[in-house]
């Protein structure tokens, strides 16, 4: 099976060759057959059609795929991508060219870590029973995704962390949105931008989505998949599909 893909990276100038060297070529993998449980071997030949700056796929999707933003080539939009490890601000024009970008450290993963550390510091009676336990950011994430704000799946030890979420979110959000604001105002982009648009999985976090909407951001559906959908479009164009 042949698979053509496009990829994106924070620094394609630096990493494109290395990524291509590692990804392109023939890959063989094994998995258990879901019914017979026998080992199935599959081979896939990967062709990398392009390695673009992070968010390039999202821009392609918004401007020319689903066309959710109507932007002339001379007009600007500002995108905020809240990923797992960074906030990435990208200023782009109606042709899809990246005008400027700014990286802010600490995405949704940082928020999960802050909440996990806050849970480590709790000293209520239940927590004292397991006071040396390090809380895991991924279980925090699970509680957020499920909407229960409960750490762990067990009703005896499951801890509600709504208070920690609210407190950590405030700090996480306010420090970063300030950096975002500094960048877009210092570059004089905010006044020129026709749209503020938000994507990346962190955009759909509870409260974050409301904060973004409050600032007038266009928040698209399935924000975690927008970049991938756009990269698919760019791949199709590259292979003439």
């Amino acid at each position, binding site marked *: 099976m042949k698979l053509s893909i496009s990829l994106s990276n924070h620094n*394609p100038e630096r990493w*494109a060759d290395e990524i291509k060297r590692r990804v392109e070529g023939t890959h063989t993998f094994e998995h258990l057959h879901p019914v017979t449980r026998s080992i199935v071997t599959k081979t896939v030949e990967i062709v990398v059609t392009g390695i673009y700056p992070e968010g390039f796929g999202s821009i*392609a999707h918004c401007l020319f795929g689903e*066309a959710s933003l109507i932007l002339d080539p001379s007009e600007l939009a500002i995108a905020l991508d809240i990923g797992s490890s960074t906030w990435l601000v990208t200023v782009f024009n109606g042709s899809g*060219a990246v005008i400027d970008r700014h990286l802010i450290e600490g995405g949704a993963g940082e928020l999960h870590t802050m909440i996990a550390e806050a849970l480590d510091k709790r000293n209520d009676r239940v927590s004292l029973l397991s006071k040396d336990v390090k809380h895991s950011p991924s279980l925090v994430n699970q509680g957020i995704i499920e909407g229960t704000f409960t750490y762990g799946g067990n009703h005896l030890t499951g801890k509600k962390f709504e208070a920690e979420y609210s407190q950590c979110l405030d700090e996480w959000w306010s420090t970063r949105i300030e950096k975002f604001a500094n960048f877009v105002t210092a570059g004089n982009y905010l006044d020129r931008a026709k749209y503020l648009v938000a994507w990346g999985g962190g955009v759909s976090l509870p409260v974050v989505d409301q904060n973004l909407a409050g600032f007038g951001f266009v928040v698209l559906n399935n924000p975690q998949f927008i970049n991938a959908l756009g990269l698919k479009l*760019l791949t199709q*164009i590259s292979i003439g599909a």
Partner: protein
Amino acid sequence: MNYESRRITISYLAVIELCKIFDLPQDAPTQALSAGVEKLIFQHGNVQPSPKVETPQSTQPNKSALSAMVTNFKGAA
């Protein structure tokens, strides 16, 4: 399971509603009313989940603009 038929009584207000649904006169014979109830039961049994309102994917990708994006990026790289 007992397969004998069962007799039921429906309220006066339900009869009015039933007559409205099937456009029956208020003095329709009981056979017509029971036919209406039966029809409702079968309709309910066959209820399909309401068809999802598909957002029409009317917007086709703008291929020339996408192609220009790729060319311009590769040209700059």
